[in-house]
């Protein structure tokens, strides 16, 4: 017989847990849900738009009644549980139902704090927690004729301001009373708080700051309706409605009565279990490691862990959440995270442009981000938040931190960053042709919460990723107050819970040497992986065991499997290596003959090479054989590998040249070709600071100066433009080679699959790279030696191995019909 799972609470935390559980173990439990509200589960984050009249209850439903039926979940709505009987493992409802359980999940949520002042029980005094509250507010707005009615909101925090905005949109006259002298003082410093207040004031909201409520005034009639609010200083504010938005408290009475240990909330361990191991708890009712949460993102993280435990998978632990806040009031983009007060040892970096309404503050401690406030322009907030969570050493890019990662602009987006100002038709994702309206539509209709959800459903930002920031902004605006940011630890893909770094460590620690070996040891969720993890694991194994690992061609993208670039029409382009961009008549003749025979043109590539396009797959081995006769080998233009080394002519020819960039570039390419890397890796060598080889936008760029060479790292020029960071200066060619090999090896060993060196450096910080490559001479030599060793096994031309009839070339030729 199936075990019985009883869930108390039909809100977002409880249902998210049930959804996750059904994905993992659909047949493990008979699930019964008790909810006090007379609805299915709706999206509480979207109450503000309902209040503002922009959405209806139906539109924000997450799980309607059909969902419970379809998933075999029994729902008792509008039913209150009055007792948990832990001895007999059953719960009792107010109307006399007894439901036995094997496992119990508490998702009780929280209650609004109601100030204990005289008059707080008057009719017209409401909280802002559930749809019932919203309906009550809308009723007042409607009955009084919105234009004449007055609303007073007590509490100038996130919730209070969203309520104020919603009621303002209903046409009410809105005043906010706040105890402190700064709005959202837990999230904002004085300056940002004042700027926010000014812009809300301009919209028509009135503020009473540093004001304490003494009592709520009511009419003397029988109905006892609210008429106003009296402050400590004696002043009175007239009101037809008072909204209490001063805070929330975890709902714990039911658990407490059953003898489950509670402090501020129901105390849970990292496995989301209470002190009674058969009883789990998630959401706003819990206290974990001394903290309680009132936002959506932590609740989703808890739900995932709890579902994992309930499914008896035995792994997954909740370590607490780093939270951020976003206020979404039309025209105001506000983000806040972490500790932004100037405590001891902290330093603040501030950017302020009052007339544009932009304020950014980043607080550092020991060169690591402790907190951040962005007002008016928060497009770079997710990036900053990630740096904060990963505690990246930012000392090397302090000078540009406040200007975000996209200081030079991304390709395909123009200069448009303000998603608010865009029309619904504006194309957000240039790769996949997705408009702002498409994204909003998908979020609403398909009930999406995360960036990954949006990517899966719309493809927006799933190709080149340059519009990720915009998509995140749209998510934030559409979902209102808070939404689920990318979790700190990202699993490699949906087949596993482990991150890139955890998997790489396990591969070396546990001597895992094949893809099936990794999958079975790490308990993969799919029998044969997916396109993402198969490619990543193949690379990680290749990097970890260069001398032993047998490359699995079927776990490579088609370009790397076929050793040519697939094109739009299904044909391939062939790019031979042109060492340092220098060619000769014999090679040119071979390329020309080949193109002539196939009747195709020749394209000069961005990497100073020649490409033969429109080659049919079945013709590839023959083309390679022909090119091979002239000594041409594969250029790896198709691979996540070392590409070309771009050069200028250097001092042999150029009157400005200080170094022989051409000769050294060729030498570099001969040393470095063939190496597989997490993503493509481009190099450049310029003979003087005029930099004609464009070394400062390469993954590894070298620039000649009179005294030697400058080494630059982490540049890119494509989807994003990122200028390199200066690594250091060295005197000799030998040193350049050693530093380059060490840098490549560090990137190969620690970069995530599909992560360019530029993104990798931004993730881990330039200071770390300098520490490993420049400051640690012994470590550098060891890295370089490891790189050179692995080169011994890979510098074999894949074309020569497949040219003509040699090897298994079946894949290249079509099947024949034998009628």
């Amino acid at each position: 017989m199936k075990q019985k799972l009883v869930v108390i609470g039909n809100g977002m935390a409880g249902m998210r847990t049930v959804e996750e559980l059904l994905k993992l173990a659909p047949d493990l439990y008979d699930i019964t849900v008790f909810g006090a509200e007379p609805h299915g589960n709706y999206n509480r984050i979207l109450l503000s738009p309902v209040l503002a009249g922009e959405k209806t209850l139906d539109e924000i439903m997450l799980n309607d009644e059909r969902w419970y039926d379809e998933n075999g979940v029994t729902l008792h709505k509008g039913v209150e549980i009055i007792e948990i009987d832990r001895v007999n493992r059953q719960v009792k409802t107010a109307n006399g139902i007894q439901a036995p359980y094997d496992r119990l999940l508490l998702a009780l949520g929280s209650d609004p704090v109601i100030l204990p002042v005289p008059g707080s029980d008057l009719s017209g005094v409401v909280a802002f927690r559930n749809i019932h509250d919203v309906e009550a507010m809308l009723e007042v707005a409607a009955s009084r004729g919105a234009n004449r009615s007055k609303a007073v909101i007590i509490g100038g925090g996130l919730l209070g301001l969203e309520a104020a905005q919603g009621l303002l949109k209903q046409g009410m006259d809105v005043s906010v009373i706040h105890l402190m002298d700064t709005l959202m003082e837990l999230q904002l410093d004085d300056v940002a708080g004042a700027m926010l207040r000014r812009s809300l004031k301009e919209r028509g909201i009135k503020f009473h700051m540093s004001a304490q409520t003494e009592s709520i005034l009511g009419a003397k009639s029988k109905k006892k309706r609210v008429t106003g609010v009296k402050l400590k200083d004696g002043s009175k504010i007239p009101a037809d409605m008072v909204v209490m938005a001063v805070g929330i408290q975890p709902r714990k009475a039911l658990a407490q009565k059953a003898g489950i240990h509670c402090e501020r909330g129901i105390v849970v361990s990292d496995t989301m279990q209470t002190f009674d191991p058969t009883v789990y708890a998630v959401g706003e009712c819990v206290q974990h490691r001394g903290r309680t949460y009132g936002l959506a993102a932590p609740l989703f993280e808890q739900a995932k862990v709890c579902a994992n435990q309930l499914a008896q998978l035995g792994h997954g632990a909740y370590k607490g959440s780093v939270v951020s806040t976003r206020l979404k009031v039309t025209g105001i983009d506000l983000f806040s995270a972490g500790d932004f007060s100037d405590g001891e040892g902290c330093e603040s970096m501030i950017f302020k442009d009052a007339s544009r309404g932009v304020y950014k503050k980043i607080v550092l401690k020991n060169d690591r981000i402790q907190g951040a406030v962005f007002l008016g322009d928060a497009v770079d907030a997710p990036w900053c938040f990630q740096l904060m969570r990963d505690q990246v050493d930012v000392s090397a890019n302090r000078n540009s931190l406040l200007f975000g990662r996209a200081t030079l602009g991304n390709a395909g987006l123009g200069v448009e960053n303000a998603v608010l100002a865009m029309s619904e038709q504006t194309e957000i994702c240039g790769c996949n042709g997705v408009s702002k309206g498409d994204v909003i539509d998908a979020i609403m209709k398909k009930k999406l919460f995360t960036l990954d959800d949006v990517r899966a459903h719309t493809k927006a930002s799933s190709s080149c990723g340059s519009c990720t920031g915009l998509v995140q902004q749209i998510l934030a605006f559409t979902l209102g107050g808070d939404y689920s940011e990318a979790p700190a630890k990202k699993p490699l893909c949906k087949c596993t819970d482990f991150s890139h770094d955890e998997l790489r460590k396990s591969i070396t620690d546990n001597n895992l040497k094949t893809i099936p070996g990794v999958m079975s040891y790490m308990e993969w969720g799919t029998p044969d992986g997916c396109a993402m993890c198969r490619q990543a694991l193949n690379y990680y194994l290749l990097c970890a065991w260069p001398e032993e690992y047998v490359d699995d061609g079927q776990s490579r993208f088609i370009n790397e499997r076929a050793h040519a670039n697939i094109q739009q029409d299904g044909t391939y382009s062939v790019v031979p290596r042109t060492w340092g961009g220098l060619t000769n008549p014999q090679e040119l003749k071979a390329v020309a003959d080949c193109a002539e025979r196939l009747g195709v043109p020749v394209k000069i590539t961005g990497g100073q090479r020649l490409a033969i396009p429109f080659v049919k797959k079945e013709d590839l081995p023959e083309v390679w054989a022909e090119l091979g006769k002239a000594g041409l080998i594969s250029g790896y233009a198709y691979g996540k590998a070392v590409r070309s080394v771009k050069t200028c002519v250097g001092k042999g020819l150029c009157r400005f040249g200080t170094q022989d960039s051409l000769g050294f570039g060729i030498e570099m390419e001969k040393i470095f070709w063939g190496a597989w890397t997490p993503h493509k890796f481009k190099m450049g060598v310029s003979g003087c600071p005029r930099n004609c080889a464009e070394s400062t936008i390469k993954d590894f760029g070298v620039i000649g100066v009179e005294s030697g060479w400058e080494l630059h790292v982490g540049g890119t020029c494509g989807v994003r433009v990122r200028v390199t960071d200066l690594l250091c200066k060295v005197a000799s060619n030998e040193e350049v080679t050693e530093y380059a090999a060490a840098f490549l090896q560090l990137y190969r060993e620690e970069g995530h699959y599909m992560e360019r060196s530029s993104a990798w450096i931004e993730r881990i910080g330039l200071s770390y790279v300098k520490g490993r490559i420049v400051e640690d001479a012994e470590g550098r030599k060891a890295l370089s030696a490891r790189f050179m060793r692995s080169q011994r096994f890979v510098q074999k031309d894949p074309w020569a191995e497949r040219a003509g009839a040699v090897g298994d070339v079946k894949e290249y030729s079509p099947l024949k019909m034998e009628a």
Partner: protein
Amino acid sequence: MSAWIEIGKIEDIPLRGARVLKTGNGDIAVFRSVDNRIFALQDQCPHRGGPLSQGLVHDWRVTCPLHGFVIELASGAAVEPDEGCAERYQVRIKGGVISLFLEAGLEKKARREKVTA
């Protein structure tokens, strides 16, 4: 004329890979999964027509090389949340030899029009 057509042996298809069969009605992708099952689909992703035969095969699925749509080999249907379906062909194995059931062009065209009408 519709008929079962022999196209080769199981070993002719790379394991966890695919090959293309060219026909008068367009290309057909013939897949061999990790457990040696053979599947045949029209070599055209329902998304933007990418060649599924060039995709990465995992379990009974293939990921399109152009934009990453995941297609079920057994049904030709895109895996949720993606939508669409690639046409599926019947496969028969006898003594290690693969045959596909191919409909003649005109009959097939007529049937298609009937379906859409």
